[in-house]
């Protein structure tokens, strides 16, 4: 982050504005290279076009190769629908309510824990269902899983 490079004792003699520009340029270069999955020769060519000398290009590329983190971070940036992370369930047996006694019915309460790609948290999606409805839901999820398995074997 900005505060750490400006506080670095080795860099204190350099004009802070220049330092920030260099930092931003290097970061952009790394992100673009990661985004495009560029190999070392592509990066070198690009830096040559920017009139960097041989020594600096080699240093940059060596450092770049040691960092695998870029791809992982870029992987998770971006919009997507609410993402399910976990599920919890509750089985209850209804006996009566104030309108109707002797109802005697099992029912499930299912809660899907979801995450928003932007803010990270989101109210969970909860719903009740009968045993038959839960069987329907599980059946459909299993169809999706089977379809995934077949797709990975293609």
């Amino acid at each position, binding site marked *: 982050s900005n505060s750490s490079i400006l506080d670095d004792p080795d860099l204190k003699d350099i004009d802070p504005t220049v330092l920030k520009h260099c930092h931003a340029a290097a970061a952009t270069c790394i992100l673009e290279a990661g*985004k495009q999955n560029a190999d070392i020769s592509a990066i070198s060519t690009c830096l040559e076009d920017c009139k960097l000398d041989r020594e600096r290009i080699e240093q940059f590329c060596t450092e770049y190769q040691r960092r695998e983190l870029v791809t992982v971070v870029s992987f998770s940036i*971006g919009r997507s629908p609410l993402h399910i992370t976990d599920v919890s369930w509750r*089985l209850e047996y209804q006996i009566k309510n104030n309108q109707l*006694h002797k109802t005697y019915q*099992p029912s499930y309460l*299912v809660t899907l824990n979801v995450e928003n790609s932007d803010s990270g948290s989101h109210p969970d999606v909860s719903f009740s269902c009968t*045993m038959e409805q839960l069987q329907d839901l599980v059946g459909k999820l299993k169809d*999706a899983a089977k379809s995934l398995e077949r797709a990975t074997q293609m």
Partner: protein
Amino acid sequence: MLLVLSAEHRAHLGCLPRAGGAAVGELGRLALEQLRRGAAPRACETAARKLNIGVDTIQHGVEGLVYLLTESSKLMISEVDFQDSIHVLGFSDELNKSLLQLYLDNRKEIRSILGELAPRLPSYHSLEWRLDVQLASRSLRQQIKPAVTMKLHLNQNEDQTAQVLQTDPATLLHLIQQLEQALGEMKMNHCRRIVRNMK
């Protein structure tokens, strides 16, 4: 279990023997319509004219019957208990038999109407799913990221809502495993014992 009838309730039902045999059938029909669709003062007036009885008597009779039927259906009282409950009203055998028949014929329907009044959470309706593979995004090219996109349809108080959700293959398998465990619980001895003993 016996039904406890209050004095006011008994007074309302007390007008039934005065109304006569044919009238009881008509009042029964009005009571059921009121349960299905709500109060209908016009229908009561028509019935009053047809049977040559005061409108107030008709209304009280209908209200009395509605209460009798809903309470009996709510508690699901047995035939014997129903007969014993209305015995205190001192009606003729014929009237008692008509009331019992009215109760038995309609209690299933009345219970399902009462069932809709209970508090409810959004309930499951259906699920649609789709297999996606993300190939690229603004921040990263050349990806292969499989995902399952789903549309969960829920019912909430007569509205249907649809929610779009997504999950990755590992979580999908985890969801299936957890929910299958949930389904298996009903078959366990513990649940079976409770269900058997609750009836």
